[in-house]
């Protein structure tokens, strides 16, 4: 770091609000695409596990293995195939959401009480109606808890995708390190953290809205 520089130069922050806004949009987009696609894939795989419990071990094994690969290593492994692209970034980001999302969707649906399921079937719900009108709504609290964890960890991982040229708040961190400029570094880190906290708070609100029955009257 340059001698005599203050830790944060507020004039730099004031002069770069436009860029901060642009990085915010990039960061949110990268995260939303990853969690969105991850959720669709995880939901399909979770339903498969519910229907065929034998598939639980292999699916958990594959998604668990993906989860253990260090993110930077995964991006590097993908570059020869998909280049420094959005696709490379999203393949990695989506992979990391699967384990937690599948686990929570399965746990949520399996947690629906047996008497509720028996009543639903006994009243004449078809299996499909029962899934969408009873099982999924009742699993919602646990499912959203999974989405929260996946979203926060994705927001963290998106900062790494700056290394493969995908922007987001990680870009500030990257440039800050290259130029020994602490202001940019701190802005990148602080914005990532703030975004994670804000996203989590929004999801908590969403969960409360979607599951009014869990609140005491």
């Amino acid at each position, binding site marked *: 770091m340059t001698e005599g520089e203050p830790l944060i130069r507020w004039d730099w922050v004031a002069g770069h609000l436009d860029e901060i806004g642009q990085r915010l949009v990039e960061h949110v987009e990268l995260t939303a695409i990853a969690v969105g696609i991850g959720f669709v894939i995880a939901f399909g795989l979770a339903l498969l596990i519910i229907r065929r419990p034998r598939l639980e071990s292999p699916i958990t094994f594959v998604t668990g293995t993906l989860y253990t690969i260090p993110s930077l290593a995964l991006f590097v492994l993908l570059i020869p195939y998909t280049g420094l692209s959005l696709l490379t970034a999203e393949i990695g980001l989506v992979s990391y959401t699967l384990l937690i999302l599948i686990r929570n969707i399965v746990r949520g649906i399996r947690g629906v009480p047996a*008497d*509720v399921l028996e009543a*639903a079937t006994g009243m004449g719900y078809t299996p499909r109606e029962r899934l969408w009108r009873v099982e999924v709504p*009742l699993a919602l609290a646990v499912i959203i808890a999974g989405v929260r964890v996946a979203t926060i960890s994705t927001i963290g991982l998106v900062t790494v995708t700056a290394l493969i040229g995908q922007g987001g708040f990680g870009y500030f961190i990257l440039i800050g390190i290259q130029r020994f400029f602490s202001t940019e570094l701190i802005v990148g880190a602080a914005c990532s953290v703030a975004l994670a906290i804000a996203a989590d708070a929004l999801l908590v609100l969403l969960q409360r809205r979607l599951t009014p*029955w869990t609140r005491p*009257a």
Partner: protein
Amino acid sequence: MPDRGATVEFREVTKRYADQIAVDRLSFTVPAGKICILVGPSGSGKTTSLKMVNRLIEPTAGAIFIDGHDVTQEEPTRLRRRIGYVIQQVGLFPHQTIAENVATVPVLLGWTKQRIASRVTELLALVGLDPARYAPRYPAQLSGGERQRAGVARALAAEPPVMLMDEPFGAVDPIVRERLQSELLRIQRELGTTVLFVTHDIDEAIRLGDRVAVMRGGKLVQYAPPGELLAHPANDFVAQFVGSDRGLKRLALLTVGGAEIDVTVDRGSLDPRAPVVRPSSTLRDALARMLESGSVIAAVVDGDRYVGALTLAKIGKMIRSDA
């Protein structure tokens, strides 16, 4: 839909699992509009039998007919929408309000919003839940007894000709249970629904049943009205199951008006401690009153009019009689 129950017939129904027979060639008919209680110790096959009616369990052999139609010939979900179903844990949907819960089958049947709303209000009132107060609540905000009332309302929503109840009052306290039992009788008489009701409680069976089917080890041991079951248990198992106090239990089914009343006894000559009983009281109540008062005779009074005297000896005769 007709405002009356359907006939339910079990014909040689058998359910065999890999290592055991749960229900063994069960045959009996529940007449339309009657309450039939399936009673027996655990493992007797009563719940399995009940669940074969709405095809939650499929029989291995034999068939069940509702108004002459074989249930296995109908699509299971369509069949179930025409059969009310109440279970012990109630199984209300926790994420839906009481109104939404009660509306379950009408929604599945595609009723109009207006028709559903008026039906829900009518049903909540029928089961004794004030619609304005309870309709917008969630199940978690209700007591056990209130939840079971909502469960009954939900089962009756689409005016089913048959209602299946699997130990519905098993998890509520005795006082609430007794009230729910009386209300079930009132509602059933009002609607004329045929009810198949599973319990392991013989007192509940005698109180509620028009017919009682006693089961043991998957077999039907006796199928009779409660009075006959108490007067003539088919074998030692039934005698033991109904209890050594079956004579007393029978008195609860008989009224003072049905007993032999001595009209020659003048009221003035009665023991001054003699309790006053009504012709509509049960003999069991009359006996209790007499034992409490210390008198061996009771004055039977209908409205304001003295009818005659009831003696302990006549009550004893009723216990022994084959009536």
